[in-house]
């Protein structure tokens, strides 16, 4: 019995490393001298930051047994609102307002989920459309340029030393996420609600409150992802985050978080998002057409996710 559980723990933790190294080694072989270079690695870290950050919040939502399909819309609204605010306010205030937008969107998802008893899948499928529509009408599909260089440097295209600020933000958000997840009563309650909502309720955990905050955190990190997008691109468009939902959810699941809730790690999610990031980068470098990239990416994601799910189902 002891042996059995020992095996379970190790296997599920290894899956993410296996996927990580398969993708890393695979592209290094397919793209000699192109993929595994310092420049390209820094590039991957920059490209992946937006997914990594949003995936931190998604880890909370999925661990609590929920899901958020509306992150793309939140990312887009936040990018635009932050860009517009930067025209009037200093960087810090604009960023805080941007995060506030994510808070409101996530909280709305949480309220619909807990007060109206609508499953998260349906709630966020609906709000996703609402948020995207809102983003499109915010500037009437116009892009907004950002000329605030401080903002662009510290949240996007700059480096500190040789390390991209985007990667530093990824690390900061991941570490904060990991600590909240592993070291606070709230994190333990999220695990409990996803593990067994009934047991959590009987244990005196306010399950609605926990689900509300898991969704709200997911909104906040999606918003932060939008802030990073706009700073990296020195402007905002309604298309930011458009196709990220699948990548974010895949990153979380490849990272070892149980899709049915109750188990996971935020560090695993970071590795999972890097798997996705390498995939996006490598397929592009291979010179595949956009259409072929989409097909290949979809297939690899399904394979990677099935790998991490299969191990869990075998218990």
């Amino acid at each position: 019995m002891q042996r059995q559980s020992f095996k379970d723990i190790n296997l599920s933790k290894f899956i993410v490393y296996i996927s990580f190294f398969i993708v890393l080694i695979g592209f290094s072989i397919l793209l000699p001298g192109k993929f595994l270079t310092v420049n390209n690695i820094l590039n991957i870290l920059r490209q992946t930051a937006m997914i990594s950050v949003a995936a931190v919040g998604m880890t909370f939502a999925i661990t609590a047994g929920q899901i958020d399909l509306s992150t793309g819309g939140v990312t887009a609204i936040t990018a635009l609102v932050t860009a517009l605010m930067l025209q009037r306010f200093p960087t810090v205030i604009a960023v805080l307002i941007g995060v506030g937008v994510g808070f409101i969107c996530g909280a709305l998802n949480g309220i619909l989920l807990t007060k109206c008893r609508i499953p998260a899948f349906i709630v966020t499928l609906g709000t996703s459309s609402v948020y995207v529509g809102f983003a499109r009408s915010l500037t009437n599909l116009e892009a907004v340029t950002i000329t605030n260089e401080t903002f662009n440097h510290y949240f996007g295209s700059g480096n500190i030393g040789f390390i991209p600020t985007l990667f530093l933000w990824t690390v900061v958000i991941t570490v904060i996420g990991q600590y909240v997840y592993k070291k606070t009563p709230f994190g333990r309650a999220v695990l409990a609600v996803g593990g067994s909502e009934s047991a959590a309720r009987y244990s005196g955990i306010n399950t609605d409150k926990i689900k509300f905050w898991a969704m709200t955190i997911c909104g906040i990190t999606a918003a932060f992802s939008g802030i990073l997008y706009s700073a990296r691109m020195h402007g905002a468009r309604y298309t930011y985050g458009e196709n990220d939902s699948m990548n974010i959810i895949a990153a979380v699941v490849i990272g070892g978080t149980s899709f049915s809730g109750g188990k996971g790690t935020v560090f695993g999610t970071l590795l999972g998002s890097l798997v996705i990031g390498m995939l996006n980068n490598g397929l592009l470098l291979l010179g595949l057409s956009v259409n072929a990239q989409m097909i290949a990416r979809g297939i690899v994601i399904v394979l990677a996710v099935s790998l991490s799910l299969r191990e869990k189902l075998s218990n």
Partner: protein
Amino acid sequence: MLKDEYALELKDIYKSFYQNQVLKGVSLNVEKGMIMGLLGGNGAGKSTLMKIVNGIYAKDSGAIFIGGKEIELHNAQDAKRQGIAMVYQELSLVPTLTVVQNLFLNAEPCNGLSIDEKMCLKQAKEAFEDFGINDIDPNAVAGDLPIGKKQLIEIIKAMLKNPQVLILDEPTASLTQYEIGLLFEFIRKLKERGIAIILISHHMKEIVEICDRAVILFNGTVALNAEVKSLTIPDMVEAMVGREVQEDYVKREKKADYNAEPLLCVKDLENSDGKLNGACFTIYPGEVVGIAGLMGSGRTELIKCIYGLMKPKKGSVTLRGKKITGQKPWVSVDTGVFMIPEDRRKSGIIDIHSVKMNLFLSAWKHFTKGGWIQDKKADEEAKKLIEKLDIKTTGIGQEVKNLSGGNQQKVVFGKSVFLHPDILMLDDPTVGVDVEAKDGICRIISAIADTGSGVLLVSSEFDHLARVCDRVLIMKQGRMVGELKRGKDKLSESSLLVAVQGA
């Protein structure tokens, strides 16, 4: 055909699971047009016997006769073909389908490839008429019907196959008094048609009311097989309990303090679904109060109302003189009221989590320093609890799903031991745990009461109540109808059974 030919005859049925001999030579017979009541405590072998008759388990030895002919049953289909029908306690109607669709589910009369809806409706109406039921619309959606009508439909569904033997497994468990009356009327009609009926029930009064014969199983043998006319409830209790064991109640270090202010006062508690009807009682410091009642007596609702998982409609709950009526569960935990639920697997533990994670499910905030959990402190505390409660585990990190039922239950107890609540409420904590773990649980309950907490123990195992309680309240139809107190009354399994069955 001989007149005394039995509809169903069981001869010397034996059955064991591995080392565990469950049936040790059970013989009984049911005549046509007779209602036989089948009783027995948990583990007496009732359900194993019925599953053998229904073809789900294979008997080790013995013989089954239908209408005088020996038969072999290999699966449930065989049993159906031989004219045996069983209606289970958990109703099998699909709530979203109509009554007619349910009646003919998987056996629809067909018209080529499509279902002959007209034929279905016609046959259903004929069946209803035949059984004298005129208040069920065959086109109603099953889920919208009250439970009593669902029960009737379930029986009619079984009767459509023209069985000779009909087995009803606790059909009255969730019915109201009025619905039970209707059901019995219906069962009597079936009896008039010459159907042999076996009725499994925990309610002796019902057996006396409707059955011709009562068979009581004890420990895998027939302890009593007699005409109901000649039986009294104490007779049946005696057969069910077996020879009374010496009173072996768990020694307590301290006694309940009846001079102190009561810890918990519950007054006239009612809830909206009518399962609670003015429940009243008090618990004193250090007292273990038991609730003895049958399923559906409102015992689970009582605990849920006090803890806050259910909203009381009327009445009050007072803890140490402070009103706590209707407070939410997370407030209850903080004010010192905690509960251990009935369904351990679903609501007690999180089986994919470790022992440690489960032990402190409700308590993480007690381990924080500046908002962060001190895991070292929690690890130490978890190890202490494992030792104190004698939980058999490979360590604090072992997943709870790999523990035995008894040890899982001890983990659930661990949650409350750490919290040290003023009032701990337990809903049937010994279901499905082995004898050794049961002893352990008895000791834990006594130890909790010794610290001055009050314990409210709901249990369907009356021997367990008799062992640990200072006082047992008899609950029926949502209120307390009697009380047995240690030292004043005889507190034993049989005295409790008599009190509950007679109330």
